[in-house]
């Protein structure tokens, strides 16, 4: 009995070591949690880059699944993912809405004119408060929202071909979208 008690430290250590092994071999310690998954997109009423005088609300976006992309001109990673967003907009039917996050609108309009505009429209979140409602960490971030306005997926960081094919497209398929036989430029 006493002898067995002497085994306790070893057992405890093995348990801790197992947890450590699991901790650093399976998980990305910097992966960020996504609290808003399966919750409704927060309500908002914001002007757009396209028409600064007419506010857009959540109801104007919903009705079918769509992507919501948080971007800014000061964000180099947004520039990096831009061509992939352009490709998605050109080849697929899913609409992409932009959230121009803590940016200078005039600068943003010039940026879109220069690099192309994959967005149906971009709402202006000048002070980042919609961003906080969205639980945004920074730019870029991309949400998949279903037809009922519920957030189904969130990507922190750039969207590239792999993220599209392995993560975003499957979510959209689940929401009833088809991709393969759609004509190019449908978005």
């Amino acid at each position, binding site marked *: 009995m006493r002898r067995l008690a002497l085994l306790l430290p070893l057992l405890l250590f093995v348990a801790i070591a197992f947890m450590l092994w699991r901790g650093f071999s399976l998980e990305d310690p*910097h992966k*960020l949690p996504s*609290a808003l998954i399966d919750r409704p997109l927060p309500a908002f009423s914001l002007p757009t880059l396209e028409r600064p005088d007419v506010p857009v609300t959540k109801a104007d976006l919903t009705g079918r699944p769509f992507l919501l992309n948080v971007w800014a001109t000061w964000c180099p*990673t947004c520039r990096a993912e831009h061509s992939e967003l352009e490709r998605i907009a050109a080849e697929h039917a899913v609409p992409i809405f932009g959230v121009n996050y803590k940016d200078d609108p005039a600068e943003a309009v010039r940026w879109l004119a220069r690099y192309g505009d994959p967005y149906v429209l971009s709402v202006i979140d000048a002070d980042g*408060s919609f961003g*906080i409602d969205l*639980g945004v960490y920074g730019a870029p971030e991309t949400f998949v929202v279903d037809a009922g306005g519920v957030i189904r997926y969130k990507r922190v960081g750039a969207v590239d071909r792999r993220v599209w094919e392995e993560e975003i497209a499957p979510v959209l398929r689940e929401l009833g979208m088809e991709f393969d036989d759609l004509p190019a430029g449908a978005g």
Partner: protein
Amino acid sequence: MRRLLLVLLCLGPLVAGAAIDLQEFDTPAQEARYHALIDELRCPKCLNTNLSGSDSPISADLRRTVARMVREGRSDEEIRSYLLERYGDFILYRPRVTPATWLLWFGPAVLLLVGAVVIVLMVRRQRRAAGAADLSPEEAERLARLRAATDASRS
């Protein structure tokens, strides 16, 4: 690579050090609540810093949000749950008490109890052994030394 990107994202403009921003409050009590809150909330994108110790843009936004909600007269609990809904448990440096954190919150107390029980049992065993042997402390001491010596020469 992705990790690196995230780290870079987090740092944003490369600034390290104190976050000094100016918030106006109606009362000193509000200001104290604000400071207590931003001390207990984690910067969601930094390595391990609270909102008051972080200079990242998201922390500045969150500090502003907290300050606004304090000024609007929302309770600490409302402010915490507002952020909790958006950023998850990760943002709270004081974990909520849920079944998944029972071990965390009550483990140390249980362990302390176990320790106390062990001490009591050891003392009682001592007393029983002392009673049974019926030796004076000096005799017990000598016996112990003799035992130790025999043990050592046996091994």
